[in-house]
Each structure stands twice: as structure tokens, then as C-alpha cells.
């Protein structure tokens, strides 16, 4: 599975890397057990610093989304169908969501539109999860 990051963005590369992986998990393009490229391989494929990729993986590890061990390298550790999110995670996430909503409301996005956008976002991820298995098969057939 391929991911794209913007080398000129204000968002740090490691953060983009982490964000793209989280999105891929939400879309079912990455599922628990998927083997990820090693830090060095991915840095070489992107032509970016090894430390950048390491930092991105470190974030994902800290969030419990990937797991790394000596033998099998980095593996996707959880997905939408794994165990339910921990209470601590939800608490911390609600705080961030609050800020995000506040930004939209402060800028004058109407509540109805806001609600629609949130629904659209959730629907988009759910729909992607129904399509992803066939995309994965397509990619697999090319290996």
C-alpha cells in the first residue's frame, strides 16, 4: 500500500506519516497483522531522513496502532474491529475534538453543516472499509 506526503507542507513529515497511517487503518487499507516496511526501507523509498520515519513510527507505537519487535519488524497492531478504545484514549481524544469543533464554530461554520461534515467523514471511512478488501487483492496480485 502506498502513502503520499507533502514535503513542502507546514505539517512535519513524521506527523504526516503518522496521520496517513492512521487514515489507512480507518479506511481498512491497512489491517491488523500487516507488515510495515522497516524504518530504513521507508526512508530510502521516500528519500528522507531515517530519523523522520523513526519519529513517525514512534508516535504510532506510542498510540498502540503498530507494534515493533526485533524479529518481525513493525506490524499494524489494531484496527476498527479490534477491542474497544480505552477510556483514557477517548478522554484525550474528546479534548482534541473540542478544540477542533471550537475552531469551526469560531470561524462561523453553521452547526447543521458541521454535523453533516462529521457524518460524511464517518460514512467515508465506513465505505472505504467495504471497498478496501478488493483493492488489497488487486495490489496483492501484482506482487
Amino acid at each position, binding site marked *: 500500500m502506498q502513502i503520499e506526503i507533502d514535503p513542502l507542507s507546514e505539517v512535519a513529515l513524521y506527523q504526516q506519516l503518522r496521520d496517513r497511517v492512521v487514515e489507512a487503518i480507518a479506511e481498512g487499507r491497512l489491517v491488523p497483522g500487516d507488515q510495515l516496511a522497516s524504518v530504513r526501507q521507508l526512508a530510502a523509498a521516500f528519500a*528522507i531522513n531515517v530519523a523522520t520515519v523513526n519519529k513517525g513510527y514512534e508516535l504510532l507505537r506510542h498510540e498502540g496502532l503498530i507494534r515493533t519487535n526485533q524479529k518481525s519488524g513493525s506490524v499494524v497492531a489494531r484496527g476498527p474491529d479490534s477491542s474497544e478504545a480505552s477510556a483514557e484514549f477517548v478522554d484525550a481524544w474528546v479534548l482534541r475534538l473540542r478544540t477542533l469543533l471550537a475552531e469551526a464554530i469560531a470561524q462561523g461554520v453553521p452547526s447543521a453543516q458541521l454535523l453533516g461534515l462529521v457524518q460524511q467523514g464517518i460514512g467515508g471511512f465506513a465505505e472505504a472499509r467495504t471497498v478496501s478488501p478488493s483493492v488489497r487483492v488487486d495490489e496483492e496480485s501484482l506482487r
Partner: protein
Amino acid sequence: MSLFVLWYALVMVTVVTAVTFILPALVRPTLPLGVSVPHDRVEMPVVRAAIRQYRRVVVAAWAVGVALTLVLFPSFPATASIVPLLLTLAIAMLGYTLSRRPILRAKEEGRWYEDVPVRIRAEITANSAPARPPLVWLTVAVVILLVAIAVGVEAYPTIADPTPLHWNATGQADAYAPKSVWSVFGTVLIGLGVVALLFACSFLVRLAPLRAVVGDTPVESLRRTRLRHRLLTSLLGQLAVVVAVQIGWLAAAGWFAPDGSETIMAGVIVLILLVLVVLVTFAVRYRHAVASWSAPSRGGRSDAPDDDRFWKGGLVYVNRDDPSVFVEKRFGVGWTVNFGSTGGKAFGIVLALVIVGGAVTAIVTSIAGYPS
């Protein structure tokens, strides 16, 4: 007989010219003459004109090479077979360096990358199955050489003593050695060594990354990367077969027709034809694999970032952040070294030592007056 040498020199100059002439067609369109440009600038007149300019220089280089060969040949046949070839290459390289400048200038003045969305892309899932080594071709090559050895063993009692070891450019044997296992089978053993080396290279191909192309859909990009990998590994395998055929032929010629220069010449002609067939087939298929990359019809998608600053003179890659030791060539087919990486630096030092060592040895030997 000596006309053969002339003919051979002219063919070499022409083949080298043909390869340098078609190179722009084997590089993805967003890298005209090794300059990174956004996909919607590929058709710009300045880009087209620069490529035409490069090709004009290449043709001029060919004319210079041919003329010099013809002038040198009557008095210095040995020089005529190498110096014009090197000169042709040098002029083509100069043409590359000069012709790409207008694109660089237009890009800077026109701010081509302003407001162009750029992305870098990579495969994040572990690459489970890299391209397979060209086992079929390599097996064919090894079988050809083993058959040659078997034939040699069979014919051993009838092989001339001393046996020819080396032939000059006119196909006449000019070095002999007393008949022994080494002098009889040495050539074939060298051939096996070369095939083994090509096999090792095909593993290097597996290690060297082929970067995903921004602008294609992910599946398309994956398919193209695989195709390029496969074409490059099978090119190595096909070259191994060509080497095996040539070595087998040379060995057999030494065993059965030690004085027959026609046999050797026929072998050289077959070699050139085989290499041409392999190269032309490869070029056509490779072109097909790169041609539609980031074609204008794919407008609206993002571009690869401008990475010209990492390519010194459009030829030498130096990127300290990039951990890859081998990267795809900017202008050409295959890989080059990242002199900014740790492995690349080590490679550069070894290369420098070899060049300096070679030069020192050459100077010392020439001063000491050893025959070459």
C-alpha cells in the same frame, strides 16, 4: 582484413550514438534532460527545443567520431578504434550539460513549481516479494557454457598445442600458451565468472529501490514499478546469455580453428547483432513502461517535488538525508550511487583510490619503460 577493424570502430561509434540519442525517450517525461519539471510543463516549447538541441549535438558528435575514425585509421588503426569513441561520448555529455540549461533557466524565471502541489510517495507495507532473479536466462547461459566445457573435454586430445589465448582486432591469434587445462578452459571459466557476476548484479537490482511515481494511481504505480524491475533483471539475464554465446564461440574457435580469423570475426559480428537485438527489445519495452508516466492527460494530480539541487550537474546524486546507497539514474537506465549516504561515500573513496592507483601505476610503468 583491416577493413574489418574500421567497420568495427564505425559500428561502435554508431551504437553509442544511437543509445545516447534515444536516452531522452527512456526517461520519464517529467525529467527532460534530467531536469525536474511539473507534468503540465512537459510539452513547453523550451523543453522540446532543449531535447532537439541535445539530439543535434549527439548527431554532430557521431559525425565527428566517424570523421576522426576515417582520418586516424590509415596511420593509427589502434588509436582509431578507441579515441573517436571516447570523443563522441565526451561531446554527447557536453551536449547534455549545455542543452539542459535553457530548461533550468526557464523553470527558475517562470517559477514553474510555484503553487504546484508536490508529494512524495512510497510503499509502506513491507515488500514481500521483490523481482525474481532472471533464473531462466541465467540457466540458459550456464548450460551453454557447460556444453562448451563438455565439447572441450571431448575434443581435448585434438586441440592444438600451443593453444591461442588472445586475438587481435583483425581476428588473428596474437598470444599462445602451452596446452593445459587452464589455457584450454580458461576462457569458459572466465565466462562462468562473468555470468556469476551478472547473477550477483541481479540481486543488487532487487536491493536497489525503484521509487514510486507520483501522479499514477497506486495500483498503476505498483504495476509500473514491477514492470521496470522485471525488465531490468531480465536485461541482465539476456546479457548473460549473450556473454555465454560469445565466450562459447571464442573457446570453440580456439579449439577447432586456431588460425581461422574468419571464425572469430563471424563471432564478433554475431555478438554485435545479439547485443543490438537485446538492447532494442529492452528499449522498446522499457519505453512502453515509462512513456505514459505523468502524461498531460493525467492533469490535476500532484507532482514529484523539484529535486534538482541533489543532482550535481544533472549527473551525480548527493543527498545526505536519503539513506539509499543506490538510486535510479537521473538520465539513463539503471542505478547510480548516492554519494551523500554512508555507503555511497565509502564507494566514492574506493573508486577514487582505484582511479588514482590506476593512474599512478600507469605513470610509473610508462616512466620505468615496461612494455604494456
